[in-house]
């Protein structure tokens, strides 16, 4: 039994992760939890730390909710989920504050605001509360990684164009475009990349390019 179950589960967990990265990408496809996508993506490093924090919180929340799914009374589930999420966000917040002081000064508020991410609450409600611990864990990793991936793409372009560097290392020796670092650049980059992902969807997968059309 163990081997067949593992055989079924293995592609499943991979599928779950992949679907979180591409098909259900929180930022480009579902257009939720957008705020930090623009706020912390002026450099690869801040984007990276934020992404890691989100992957961590997402996976841990899913595991916790899944473990407690038989104990939580359905009528009070939302407040309980919020409590679990804010607990894990506090863990991430305090750890980052201790480990990376400089970066934290820049992005502290946004780390604390992970708690208001619709994507985390949605996954807890739609997936983790109905599934076992292991798939829930991989679902959290997948959704978190999708978010992480989006942050890395946006901050890659913004740091490269805005400072001419990547992770603080000089790449382009020319006068950088300041606009990429301004808030405007963040909105532009996100909008253009979202359009690009829609284009890929229409061109190669025959979708309707509805990504983000009804976003919240």
């Amino acid at each position, binding site marked *: 039994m163990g081997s067949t179950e593992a055989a079924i589960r293995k592609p499943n967990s991979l599928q779950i992760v992949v679907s979180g990265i591409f098909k259900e990408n929180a930022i480009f496809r579902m*257009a*939720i*939890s*957008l*705020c*930090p*996508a*623009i*706020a912390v993506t002026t450099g690869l490093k801040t984007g990276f730390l934020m992404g890691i924090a989100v992957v961590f919180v997402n996976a841990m929340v899913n595991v916790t909710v899944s473990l407690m799914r038989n104990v939580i009374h359905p009528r009070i589930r939302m*407040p309980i989920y*919020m*409590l679990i999420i*804010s*607990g894990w*966000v*506090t863990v991430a*917040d*305090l750890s980052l504050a201790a480990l990376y002081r400089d970066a934290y000064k820049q992005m502290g*508020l946004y780390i*604390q*605001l992970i*708690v*208001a991410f*619709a994507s985390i*609450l949605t996954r807890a409600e739609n997936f983790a509360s109905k599934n076992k611990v292991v798939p829930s864990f991989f679902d959290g990793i997948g959704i978190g990684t999708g978010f992480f991936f989006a942050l890395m793409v946006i901050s890659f372009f913004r740091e490269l164009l805005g400072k001419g560097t990547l992770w603080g290392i000089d790449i382009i020796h020319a006068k950088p475009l300041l*606009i990429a670092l*301004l*808030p*405007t*650049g*963040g*909105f*532009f980059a*996100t*909008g*253009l990349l*979202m*359009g*690009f992902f*829609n*284009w890929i969807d*229409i061109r190669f997968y025959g979708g309707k*390019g*509805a*990504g*983000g*059309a*009804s*976003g*919240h």
Partner: protein
Amino acid sequence: MDKELAKLFEIFIASALINNFVFTRFLGLCIFFGVTKKVETAVGMSITFTAVMMISAALSWVVFNAIMVPLDITFLKIIIFIGIIASFVQASDTIMRKVSPGLYYKLGVYLALISTNCIMLAVPLINSGEHYGFIESITLGLGSGLGFAMALIIMASIREKLELADVPVPFRGLPIAFVTTGLIALAFTGFAGIITS
């Protein structure tokens, strides 16, 4: 006294224009893009939002300074603030439904959206981080509420016109809204020079 008033005015202008939540702090984007398809809904949201924002700023200030600071549990602020806001929004939803059904019919749907909003949480977090006093906290709530209202109404007016434009298919919907927001944000960077401290 004059100096205090000047400080309050500074906080107000800074939170409404210079650090506008949507255009320079990038908060509340979900709601921003969600309710700006029509001017009417944008106005309804703005009113509800500003009112809730001021009250929750006041409530969380009281809880933070009267309970959390003396007990030395400020590290729990995320959990406690989100609890305060969620329960306050839920309570006002219930009270409004009983006391004034007409108003509830108009604005109730926005209340439900507000409870998981990041600005709602950001205002108490900024207030506690900057060690603002009671009046200052409310001013920040009012300023950022009005700034958000302005952003919503500007954006809704533009998007109503945008409906008629011939946008390339992949950019329809949110992507073009993002690019538009970027242009407004560019205009808002012009406010950055108002207050020099």
